């Protein structure tokens, strides 16, 4: 599983990354977390609000810092 955090590096993106890491750790998943910071790459996902979170290339969360619990639900 591949989790991508889309965002140009603002504080919210860091918070979302931390929550995703916590969610993966709590679930004991074997997932790779990648930060996508290049704006051209982010646009390819069709996202207009950052931060966003994609799982295996599909955008699941847009424009908000989802809690670790919310992310766990997405990954389950």
């Amino acid at each position, binding site marked *: 599983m591949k989790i991508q955090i889309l965002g*140009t590096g*603002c504080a*919210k993106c860091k918070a979302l990354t931390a929550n995703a890491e916590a969610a993966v750790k709590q679930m004991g998943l074997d997932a790779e977390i990648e930060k996508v910071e290049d*704006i*051209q790459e*982010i*646009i*390819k*996902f*069709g*996202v*207009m*609000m*950052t931060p*966003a979170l994609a799982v295996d290339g599909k*955008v*699941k*969360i*847009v*424009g*908000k810092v989802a*809690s670790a*619990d*919310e992310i*766990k*639900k*997405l990954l389950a």
Partner: protein
Amino acid sequence: MANSQIVTATAKLDEPDGAGARQPCLKCSLVSRLPEIVLLALWWPVYSHLQTIATWLTYSALGLGRGTHLGASVEFFIFEVPKVLMLLILIVFGVGIVRTFFTPERTRAILAGKRESAGNVLAALLGIVTPFCSCSAVPLFLGFVQSGVPLGVTFSFLIAAPMINEVAVVLLLGMFGLKVTAIYVGTGLTVAIVAGWVIGRLRMERHLESWVSAMSAGNTAEVEAEGLDWNARFDAGREAVREIVGKVWLFVVLGIAVGAGIHGYVPTNALAGLMGKSAWWSVPLAVILGVPMYSNAAGIVPVVQALLGKGAALGTALAFMMSVIALSLPEMIILRKVLRPRLIGVFIGVVAAGIVLVGYIFNLVM
């Protein structure tokens, strides 16, 4: 309480996709929101007595002398801080709920089919209600341009969104009253509409960075923003309060502290010569000073209010405020990723000219 909130929020995600049909009703959501409703009921009684409380605290509890500089400053501070924060919490909560109906995706879909003129007006209006944060200005800009929203229409949106937002409106309402707020919103919208239209007329498309023009009409992310139930909308309101008030409260307190200092210590009419109507050069100067200054409405409005009380002209003060909020250096640096310097120059020039005009008109009329 915080824990139970998370449980309800996540439980919602459990529902199968077809659950949109049986949305929980507004009334059931209200019952589960009792603590918030109680707070809401207490809001007005507390709010309407703030002046009495501030006066009592300043002159009786603290024993400061009436008519002294310190007394005037302290009373101003004790009254304005809770007043503005209470207004802010209430309105940000309401706007947070309203915004769940306006996602950027939906706004883009509305604007994509529009021509200029009508499109500029609509874009500026949607700029007020669509969630916007300057850190996502670039993806939003690209998303709009990519899906065929005309460049000028996109700019109308981009100018209106930061300038007229709930924080600005709350502070203006709280510190200046309805009339000035209406003037600010009306002229702000006009600047956004006209500046966007002018940029559209100038055919600036070739001054986008080349990779932007080459960008293919890519896929757009489909995220289930639709079908939110009322519980989720209330959660969004709470989240907005936590996020926005959490971010701006310090600006509010600092801004009011500076305002309180000016209020108590600067003599009345001290600024009439510098920022008054007779000083014709003060409007452009205020706009130029405002560009490098970066503050949101929360920090600047209390200062402007205090300046007005000391003889600054309304038009000059409004121009200063608009310039500080709408034209910020950090946003220009972010936009530089997609706009060539020439287009950024035009953007700043057109908006600044509009603001200067607004300043002069108000100094003439008022």
